[in-house]
């Protein structure tokens, strides 16, 4: 499989008044053509910052080191002009909050056509035809009228469809979706997930889906990366991760969720404690203080990511002993 995006030892640090804080630490992963990879983690795990850094969208006090190779070219070293030619064209990003991602004073049609005119040099007429075509595939009713409206006239689900349409106009090689359905109601979420499914079946784009919802990952992704405290703790094919999670954090996550398909007449198996403070990460494993199986070594020595099988990796001392 051709690699579209390869992150190598990516580290993201932010300068704060309390010193430098690492949001992402030494992360390496790759996404192949036609593949959908799920990035799972809680708030503060570094899942969003990883990809904002790759896209050159970090806040002013943030700095990324390492490499983010998009088809062999390092996005972190690219100059602004070159990056602008790729973003919105070959690499697209969909955000959680579609309300603030669209320009409020521009008609939806104009916003969509602008992309094709800027990146592809299409004439307005050609651009319009392509916009209609993509909007139709998004199952947006009454398209002609919709194109003359402004973002505030759209519902949340409709705006998210426009965002996806926008990302697909140029048939990108890489699509990054950051919590694309989190702000939506379940019935609308189901519609949007269906669109993603169709998208996966019909294009060869690599898709990165950043989410906290393991249900969404189960339905859509081929591979899963679990992050905790700014590091990858486990990676593997989706079926394996759900069937036989290896890292205690992944196991805990899967166990602590109430499930619609299983009735439990007892307390949930909650993970005790709080997610770690990135400003003050422990010396050993970041998960050690919440881990029921932690031993002395876990608190003193940080586990490294090790290969468990050709397709699976995890960072845990306990797996070494076994």
């Amino acid at each position, binding site marked *: 499989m051709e690699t579209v995006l390869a992150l190598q030892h990516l580290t993201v640090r932010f300068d704060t008044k309390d010193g430098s804080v690492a949001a992402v630490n030494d992360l390496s992963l790759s996404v192949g053509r036609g593949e959908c990879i799920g990035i799972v983690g*809680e*708030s503060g795990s570094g899942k969003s910052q990883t990809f904002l850094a790759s896209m050159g969208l970090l806040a002013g006090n943030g700095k990324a080191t390492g490499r983010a190779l998009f088809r062999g070219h390092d996005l972190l070293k690219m100059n602004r002009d070159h990056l602008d030619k790729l973003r919105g064209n070959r690499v697209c990003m969909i955000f959680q909050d579609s309300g603030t991602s669209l320009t409020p004073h521009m008609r939806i049609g104009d916003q969509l056509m602008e992309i094709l005119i800027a990146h592809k040099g299409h004439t307005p007429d050609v651009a319009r035809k392509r916009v209609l075509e993509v909007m139709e595939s998004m*199952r947006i*009713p009454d398209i002609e009228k919709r194109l003359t409206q402004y973002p505030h006239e759209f*519902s949340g*689900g*409709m705006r998210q469809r426009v965002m996806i349409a926008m990302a697909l106009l140029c048939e990108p090689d890489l699509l990054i979706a950051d919590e694309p359905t989190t702000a939506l*109601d*379940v*019935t*609308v*979420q*189901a*519609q949007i*997930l*269906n669109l993603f499914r169709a998208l996966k079946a019909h294009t060869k784009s690599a898709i990165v889906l950043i989410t*906290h*919802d*393991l*249900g*969404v*990952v*189960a*339905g859509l992704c081929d591979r899963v990366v679990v992050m905790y405290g700014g590091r990858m703790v486990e990676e593997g094919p*989706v*079926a394996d991760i*759900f069937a036989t999670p290896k890292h205690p954090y992944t196991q*805990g*996550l*899967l166990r*602590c*969720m*109430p*499930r*619609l*398909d299983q*009735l*439990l007449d007892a*307390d*949930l*198996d*909650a*993970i*005790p404690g*709080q*997610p770690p403070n990135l400003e003050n990460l422990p010396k050993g494993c970041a998960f050690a203080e*919440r881990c029921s199986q932690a031993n002395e070594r876990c608190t003193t020595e940080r586990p490294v990511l090790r290969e468990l099988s050709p397709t699976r990796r995890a960072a845990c001392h306990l797996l070494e002993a076994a």
Partner: protein
Amino acid sequence: MSTPVLKVENLKVHFPIKSGGFLNARTLPLKAVDGVSFNVDAGECLGVVGESGCGKSTLGRAVLQLIKPTAGKVVWMGENLCDLSHETMRQKRSDLQLVFQDPLSSLNPRLTVAEIIREPLYATDASMTREEADTRIAAIMTAVGLLPEMRNRYPHEFSGGQCQRIAIARAMVLRPKLIVCDEPVSALDVSIQAQIINLLRRLQKEYGLSLIFISHDLSVVRHLCHRVMVLYLGRMMEMADRDSLFAKPLHPYTQALISAVPIPDPAKERTKEAVILSGDLPSPMNPPSGCVFRTRCPKATPVCIKDAPAIETLDNGRQIACHHWRTL
């Protein structure tokens, strides 16, 4: 679990909305809650589910008289709360409490934890001594899983999950009989959600609390609630005990809602037959004629456009509002 402590009858909350221009200015009612009736038994947890804009939060607040209902009755222990004066209602509030979704913004940032929890104590009993209040504060902090040593800290020093524990302690300190929880775990991370759900479940059992648990997350509702009410555009679609509702949802909306929840199991999630609804929730300013759900209902027929379905009550107490549920 037999005598209802709370009886809500035909509750309506309509908000006046100004519309039109200068010449044709008029006020239209936005029917946020439109004729909802239900009971809550002592020690029961009633789940209220629905999508955003279905009126579930408004319903919770109207029950507590934080929003004055337009019509209908809220009967608490035999007394209609809608008729009470402001002062009498204030006294009643020690029985009826509320926990909000956003834990940080519902706590006063300039008060310490102890002060936050003390406020309701002094508000209902001004004669309470400092020592007595302190003992109660320490006891309730322990009960919700906070260390009493943290009493002098401010909300910003706590994480979201801990703030939600403070909010629960504030609601619990008056030993209420009913708590309305409005999306209490939606803003929390998955691993913290489980802790708060366990806490609510334990408190509910230990203190024999009645809960009205408002949520959009059906998995959480299934885990926590005894009975579930499904709302759509301010009206009740279906209400049943937890097991019958999830085993065999009868209303097309309930069916769609349940089937839309992603299951964290790749094999099941990829093979399940989902009912995908088309379109979005209609504007509550201009609800569809007849059955409010008919514009998105896969089973709608002409009769649904003409007449709003009456609520039918089945033998086991299950209620449903649909013309066609028998034939689905």
